[in-house]
């Protein structure tokens, strides 16, 4: 039952780990993904890595998108990836958006974050990358 038919909507979790307080960017991305026909589970602010992974597994998502502004990404993202692996869900692709310095972005990609979008990225690019990642995951 792991196979997913091509016509079924892509399910994507959008979460904002860390302590920073607003989620406008994450909401804009959530709506763009919805308009592209995806089912977006919006988990909201201040999610711990454990919350994110639990939500991803219960919701059986094809993809996880993380948004962050606070600079805590170097602590939080690898933890989320590790927890996913621990749960044998390391194949769920994770992408990230936010203000992430180039050097950090390189390291996060090495650690397994599949795509990283800076503040200037177009929604079209985010949507097409999300779709590609989700389809590749099945």
């Amino acid at each position, binding site marked *: 039952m792991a196979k997913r038919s091509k016509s079924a909507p892509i399910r994507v979790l959008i979460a904002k780990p860390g302590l920073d307080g607003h989620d406008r960017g994450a909401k804009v991305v959530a709506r763009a993904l919805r*308009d592209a026909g995806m089912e977006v589970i919006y988990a*909201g602010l201040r999610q711990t890595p454990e919350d994110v992974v639990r939500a991803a597994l219960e919701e059986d998502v094809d993809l996880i998108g993380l948004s962050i502004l606070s600079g805590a990404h170097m602590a939080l993202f690898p933890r989320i990836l590790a927890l996913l692996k621990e749960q044998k869900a390391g194949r769920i692709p994770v992408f990230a958006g936010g203000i992430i310095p180039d050097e950090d972005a390189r390291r996060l990609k090495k650690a397994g974050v599949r795509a990283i979008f800076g503040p200037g990225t177009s929604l079209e690019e985010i949507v097409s990358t999300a779709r590609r990642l989700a389809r590749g995951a099945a």
Partner: protein
Amino acid sequence: MSGSAGPPPVARAIRRGDRRALARAITAVENGDPAAAPVVRALYPGTGHIPMVGLTGPLGVGKSSLLSALVGLLRGQGRTVGAIAVDPSSPFSGGSVLGDRIRLERRADDDGVFFRSMASRGEAGGVAAATREVARLLEAAGFDVVFVETVGSGQADVAIREIATTSVVVLVPHLGDEVQTLKAGLFEIADVFDVNKADLPGADVAARDLTELAAMGKTRDGWSSRVVRTSTTTPTGIAELWEAITAHERFLDDSGARVAGERRRLAAEIAGRLRDRVGHEVTERLERDAELRELLDRVVGRKVDPWSAAERLYRDWYGGR
């Protein structure tokens, strides 16, 4: 599948409490994946015994917050809870933003709770059927109570009655126009009215109005709707809300209405599934099938009216019965 060699492994995994297996089976059910059929079939006989509590009401009245509060209350009593939150799919893109999970407060390591967001996808009848299928998977996985949150106000949501054993209609003070919709539709579907946001002014008046309204009649089962007040911010009234729900559940057992209600819901479920299935097939074939496309052409050309076209198809397919 190896014939009658017992339940498929996925079904056994779900019964054992394997949360991944459960999550994936829910996806398969949502997608109408044929692989889900043997699992559903294997688990069905053991279901139908737990409260399925519907929380419905207009946008933003606090349904998800209440769900979270009820989860907290029940977990405190050692009971496990499955929850399904249904949000509409966009008719344009087919996509959806499912945001009810935001309100859920619980310990991230608590296996006594399973929360799943669902997009409504199809039409009303099909939504009810798919939701009930998912609710039964949660029951089979061992959860003691299942909650189903749906958005709605008015006649469109009579669907909650096709899902839940107890329907809670959530409202807020200063109902205004809502009272009109109430008279029109919600009144008959509520086993429990909850005036939430009782920390705001006007809750007393709203509760009194509803109590008067509720006293005017009974639900189809002969139950007099209860009216409670809650606030999830203070929080107050959550235990009273649960008590009203359990009072209705007891009534269902004592009066025998549970069996009749389940029979009615299952009939609606079969009809809903069939309606969806046939509807999709007809829509598709009207474009694909040469003969049916020609019929559609004739309807478009005003040679045949839609009613007669439908009658003709119905007779062709089901005729002679």
